[in-house]
């Protein structure tokens, strides 16, 4: 079973392009519909937990399924499975890329790709804004964090993004303690 878990998740890791969300649909397909390792409801629940906890979403899901099947050992087997193909591929790329990048045509290609990367990051944040809890406090925090990070980048102040997040958490905590209602509900009552 541990071996099956490892190889099932290695297959999932190898065949998903585009990261966590693409992977969730494949995990759903294989672990819920084909192998019936977990139920659809459990899968929904773990997706919600995965979104509100830190770290790679695919790892959260793999750990969950593995743990349900075979406890801690199963969790480790599934997690290792999902990580192994990535590891091998990226390792090989880092070994060969430096030489590869010296070719003028390839370098030009990568100059274009940088624009695509910027667009994808921008688009990810726009999607997140659409799904966000829309409260006044949330918008204030979003704007302040945006400004702080933007000025930080432009003037190279060296403030870490984690420091900005922790400040936001502290502000939200204070607001929630002072107002006596959970900050998430604040805007809805106005």
């Amino acid at each position, binding site marked *: 079973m541990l071996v099956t878990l490892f190889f099932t998740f290695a297959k999932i890791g190898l065949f*998903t392009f585009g990261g966590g969300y693409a992977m969730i649909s494949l995990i759903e397909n294989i672990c819920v519909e084909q192998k019936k390792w977990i139920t659809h409801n459990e899968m929904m629940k773990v997706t919600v937990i995965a979104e*509100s906890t830190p770290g790679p979403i695919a790892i959260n899901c793999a750990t969950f399924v593995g*743990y349900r099947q075979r406890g801690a050992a199963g969790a480790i087997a599934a997690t290792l499975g999902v990580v192994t193909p990535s590891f091998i591929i*990226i390792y090989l790329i880092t070994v060969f890329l430096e030489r590869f990048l010296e070719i003028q045509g390839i370098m030009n290609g990568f100059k274009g790709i*940088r624009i695509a990367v910027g667009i994808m990051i921008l688009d990810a944040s726009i999607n997140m804004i659409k799904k966000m809890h829309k*409260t006044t406090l949330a918008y204030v925090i979003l704007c302040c964090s945006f*400004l702080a990070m933007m000025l930080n980048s432009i003037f190279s102040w060296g403030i870490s993004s984690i420091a*900005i997040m922790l400040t936001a958490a502290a502000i939200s905590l204070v607001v929630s303690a002072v107002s006596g209602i959970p900050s998430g509900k604040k805007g809805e009552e106005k």
Partner: protein
Amino acid sequence: MIYINLLIGFLKVGLFSFGGAYAAIPMIRDIVLEYGWMDEDALMNMVAISESTPGPIMVNLATYVGCSRAGILGGILTTIAVVVPAFTIIILAIIFMEKAPKNKYVSAVFHGMAPSIIGIILATGLYMLLKISIRPLMNDTADIRPVLMTALLLTVFYGSRKLLKKKMSPILLILLSAVMGVIVYGV
């Protein structure tokens, strides 16, 4: 000691990247720029490669930084570091299922962090795009190619979504931009 810096850096990434890979990018950027492991160009090459290879993007990014700075051992360290927090948290969540999020103060912390990280990601993406497209305009050569390419790619990306009601896949966008780069800079 590079191994310790890699380990601690990526444990932090694994612990604070709420919302997946895009939340991790600003943090990884902090780390690689702080230690001088990469410049912005190398960072963006890495993001593109991690996007277009299979597997979890955040794991790809971690493995990449580790392997390129400190070989296979570095890669193993960063991969473990970025995975361990998520792994531990899910097992705790299964054991104490749904108890924690109902606590008022825990949920206040989450509600504060979520919009903050969105602001951080938005700023990172926008800054990268502006730096690529606007900065070359201010050089002596006043290179307008990057800003034109950016405008064109944005139009294609969002235009195709409006027209086809379907999001353009990141891999297709990367391929398109690569072809554009080869043509525009090569000719």
